[in-house]
């Protein structure tokens, strides 16, 4: 039973990690708390559904397409809204993303009504039953994809010079400009990558989850907490934060009380933040 809980916890944690990494990227680089990350996840799911229904693509195959479209959407949103908002007070940046999430949810609601859709058949189905541990192949997909995406993001941020530029921007924007790095480009890129990651999370999640305009909101709150748990702007910290959230979510539910499992998760967050005000890996 415990092994099953650990496995399930890691799976849920890996999806939460995908969302919290996107938030950590935006938070770290632009110090903006993005409330619309949940909605990018939802749009990613609808894109996957669209590809699956009309072009018959399995969610995994549609990951690259969804990621590219979401990247473009992220850049568009950055150019139109976030860039202007960055000039205003910090608080209005957070409210812009909150209002944007309201617009996206209800816009999608008007477009495609709130009907619950699912992806009928996927390549990896069926379960492998070891008696004490049942591994469903559908659950392996989010695990693998999130490890791949984290690795890719880690390499990109540390190895490529564009990635280093983005990381440098998060440390000190003014020094950046003096050195001649175009911070606008880094911001746009960061926002684009974050929404692309959320889109990938959407593909992965639509593997076994239902799709409706309001699906993003519940993932958003726990993605935010996972980021704060992991630490200010540290992407690796967000990944660990996401995993931790998933495991605590399952264990609290099974061994404590299912109704109060989210109270346990919030209690963990309060505990960590009171001892380390900047989160586990925060600078």
């Amino acid at each position, binding site marked *: 039973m415990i092994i099953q809980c650990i496995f399930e916890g890691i799976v849920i944690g890996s999806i939460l990690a995908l969302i919290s990494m996107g938030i950590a990227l935006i938070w770290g680089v632009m*110090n903006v708390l993005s409330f619309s990350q949940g909605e990018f996840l939802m749009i990613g799911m609808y894109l996957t559904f669209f590809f699956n229904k009309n072009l018959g693509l399995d969610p995994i195959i549609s990951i690259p397409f969804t990621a590219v479209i979401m990247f473009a959407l992220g850049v568009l949103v950055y150019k139109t809204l976030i860039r202007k908002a960055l*000039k205003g007070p910090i608080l209005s940046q957070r409210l812009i993303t909150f209002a944007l999430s309201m617009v996206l949810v*209800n816009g999608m609601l008007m477009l495609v009504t709130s009907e619950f859709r699912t992806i009928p058949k996927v390549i990896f189905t069926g379960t492998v039953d070891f008696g004490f541990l049942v591994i469903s192949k559908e659950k392996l997909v989010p695990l693998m994809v999130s490890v791949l995406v984290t690795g890719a993001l880690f390499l990109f941020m540390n190895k490529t010079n564009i990635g280093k530029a983005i990381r440098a921007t998060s440390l000190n924007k003014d020094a950046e400009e003096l050195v001649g790095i175009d911070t606008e480009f880094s911001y746009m890129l960061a926002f684009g990558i974050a929404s692309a990651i959320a889109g990938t999370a959407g593909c992965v999640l639509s593997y076994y989850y239902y799709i409706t305009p309001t699906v993003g909101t519940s993932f958003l709150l726990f993605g*935010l907490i996972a980021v*704060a748990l992991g630490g200010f702007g540290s992407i690796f910290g967000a990944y660990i934060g996401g995993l931790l959230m998933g495991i605590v979510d399952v264990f609290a539910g099974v061994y404590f009380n299912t*109704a*109060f499992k989210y109270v346990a998760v919030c209690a963990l967050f309060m505990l960590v933040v009171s001892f380390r005000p900047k989160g586990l890996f925060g600078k």
Partner: protein
Amino acid sequence: MKNYIEANSHFIIKFLASLLVAILLPLFIKTPFPLHVMILICIWAIMGMGWNFIGGYAGQVSNGHALFYGIGAYACGIGMKNFNASPWITMWVGVIISIGVAFVLGAPLLRLKGHYFALATMAIAECGRIIFLNWNYVGGATGVDFLNKAEPGWYTLQFTSKYPYYYIFLTFVVLILLLTKGLDKSKFGYYLRAIKANEDSAQSVGINTSRYKLLAFMLSAGVVSLAGSLYANYLQYIDPSIVMPLNVSMMICLVTVMGGIGTVIGPVIGAIVLTVISEYTRATFSSISGFDLFIYGALIIIIVLFLPNGLISLFRRKQKIRILTPLEMEERMR
């Protein structure tokens, strides 16, 4: 006192004029729906002003004030249902409980800065909602409805017509507005603004920043809980999903930012504009699903983008940055 009036004459004239309008307006309204909107405006104005103390003046943006809103509502609900106590008493019990909770939570919370503080308050409000949802004494998910027609209106604060509700809520709005005006130019107000501007340098000039932040947090908790009690009596039925959801916390913060953060009448302006837009978009566009919230979100984006300092910047000329001529300096020195 004389120079106080002379100094704030500008504010007093505007205040009395708008008060007159607020008092006379209901007499021209025939159907209760606009009156319902005005009552909501009062509620949101009180909440916005309450939140303004901690979010606006002290700069510690909290996204979890629905917790105190819920405590105030439940204090009245349970008071009426189980103890048959008049809301005039249970309202203040709710305020005291909220201040207590704010004091207990304030100490660990206020050590956090910026986004962390916002996320921590959001997590706590969500925990509060879940706890109230599964707590059978307070009716849990079935909520508390206290439609009690026995005692007369003034004792149970339950009336068939809307006018008494409106005028009672309006008096609360005026009282809290005057409280804010008083505190704005007081030591408390200056200290909070200093904390918001630069906490370290504020501390180096003798301000006990953690104590003042806690005071502001407790004051804002009390005022928001008051709004919760008033709204509970108007709605006469409460359950956790009405009084403690995440979007109520966000709306409280939105009302103040929209109006003009850290100003005296900012929250009131924000409450008026936002409530009117949200109620009327819902009433007129109710046929297409989701359209009214779509418009609402879009309007908020437009306002926040083009008027970053809030709607109040429309009505207030920017402070002139000028250097005093020597003559003015002489005259000021005397």
